[in-house]
């Protein structure tokens, strides 16, 4: 109920009550004293009481319902205004899309999906979409990109959309291979040979030179060429390597995790304060776009692109040097030779410290795939029919 509690003060209160009866003003008595009384009256009746020309002192002691909210609004206008503004701003911001991520390693596929999403109405800094619209976009993309996409899912995570894609794997037609031989890619000692077609011409533990034929595609019977086949197989050999490394004793490495976001920041002196950044990165690489800057005071507001960075600090000591350096040397070898290698033996040939750096020379015995293919020069094979005639 919308009402006022008013306190009437003055001599002979009953006179005032008589006036209320005369003007048919409704009231309910709450409290009464010798020179005062507290009445509850409705909003309309309070307006009528205010118009009465009386010598009694009338003060409002309490408000109920609408008068209370009107009074509160008048008194706390700024605070309530800011609260309301923040509420509407938060509601507005929580209905915006701040990021769209297509989760796949293939950049071309990601770009295609981004373009399709934009075409069908799912864009950054636009309003979020409902379930029906989401399904509609998903189906449209699946229909449009049916040759390259097998499955697609649009997932809403907070104010971002994550798109999970599974590409369609197309089986490449096998090319018809020309007659060829398997040759050694580099010099080494043969450890194993797996031949699926062709004839093996070397033995295990045999030392071979670079370019030497290992599995031939020329199938012979007593010096007579019976068939020419594309030799296929895998030959593993023991190869020796010297790896020279020069490393700083103290090493700091920063690597991007791939996570990034845009944040509104306030900079004051050396302090940075972020707005709406509820999960700040521990370390990040920042690219600032200045929105406002005070010409004299050290105060500015920026829109900052934050890229999450992982920092790794390494210190090489004499004791655990080999343990730390070996993986580095191995990765260096794997960079050159590929993942399919196996370290058979390792040895430190030379070690020295110079001007805060460690110079190392390491020897590795590696089991490595030395398979390479070489086409058979058909002109070099004598024509059997011609020879017979």
């Amino acid at each position, binding site marked *: 109920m919308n009402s006022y509690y008013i306190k009437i003060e003055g001599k002979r209160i*009953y006179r005032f*009550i*008589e006036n*209320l*009866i005369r003007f*048919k*003003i*409704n*009231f*309910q*008595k709450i409290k*009464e004293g010798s020179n005062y009384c507290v009445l509850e009256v409705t909003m309309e009746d309070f307006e009528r009481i205010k118009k009465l020309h009386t010598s009694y002192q009338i003060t409002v002691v309490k408000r109920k319902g609408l008068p209370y909210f009107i009074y509160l609004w008048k008194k706390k206008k700024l605070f309530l205004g800011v609260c309301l503004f923040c509420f509407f701003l938060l509601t507005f911001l929580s209905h915006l899309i701040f990021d769209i991520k297509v989760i796949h390693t293939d950049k071309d596929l990601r770009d295609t999906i981004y373009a399709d999403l934009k075409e069908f109405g799912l864009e950054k800094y636009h309003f979020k979409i409902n379930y029906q619209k989401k399904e509609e976009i998903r189906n449209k993309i699946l229909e449009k990109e049916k040759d390259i996409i097998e499955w697609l899912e649009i997932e809403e995570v907070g104010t971002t959309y994550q798109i999970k894609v599974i590409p369609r794997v197309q089986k490449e037609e096998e090319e018809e291979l020309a007659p060829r031989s398997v040759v050694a890619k580099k010099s080494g000692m043969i450890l194993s040979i797996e031949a699926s077609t062709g004839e093996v011409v070397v033995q295990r533990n045999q030392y071979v030179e670079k370019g030497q034929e290992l599995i031939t595609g020329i199938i012979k019977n007593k010096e007579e060429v019976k068939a020419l086949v594309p030799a296929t197989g895998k030959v593993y050999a023991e190869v020796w390597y010297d790896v020279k490394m020069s490393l700083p004793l103290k090493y700091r490495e920063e690597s991007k995790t791939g996570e990034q976001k845009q944040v509104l920041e306030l900079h004051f002196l050396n302090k940075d304060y972020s707005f709406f950044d509820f999960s700040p990165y521990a370390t990040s690489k920042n690219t600032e776009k200045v929105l406002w800057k005070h010409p004299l005071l050290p105060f500015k507001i920026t829109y900052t692109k934050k890229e999450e960075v992982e920092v790794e600090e390494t210190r090489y000591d004499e004791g655990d040097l080999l343990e730390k350096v070996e993986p580095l040397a191995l990765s260096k070898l794997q960079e050159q030779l590929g993942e399919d290698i196996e370290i058979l033996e390792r040895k430190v040939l030379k070690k020295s410290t110079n001007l805060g750096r460690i110079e190392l020379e390491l020897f590795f015995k590696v089991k490595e795939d030395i398979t390479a293919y070489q086409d058979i020069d058909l002109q070099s094979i004598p024509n059997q029919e011609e020879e017979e005639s």
Partner: protein
Amino acid sequence: MSSFILHKSILGDVSMRLWNPIEDYIEDREFHFDVFDDRIHVVNYLEILSVGDEKIIILGPHQKIYLYGSSFSLSKLFDQELLIDGKLLKVEVTYE
């Protein structure tokens, strides 16, 4: 068909008997006043003709009520309802 009419009439009668007291409670239209130890509750009056510490005159639809007592004061004054605090000693009713 006849059983349906019978049921309908019985239900109608029962519902009316239940409804009338509820309606009376919700929407009281009759003039009456209730006397308690320390207060008098008047409902559906037309006008208050006079208010004093020891005498109050109230106009009803067809009658005037004279209330005599001590320490009278109005506790609640609404269009249809009146609550008077005080001790009632005598009541006079005059029909016009």
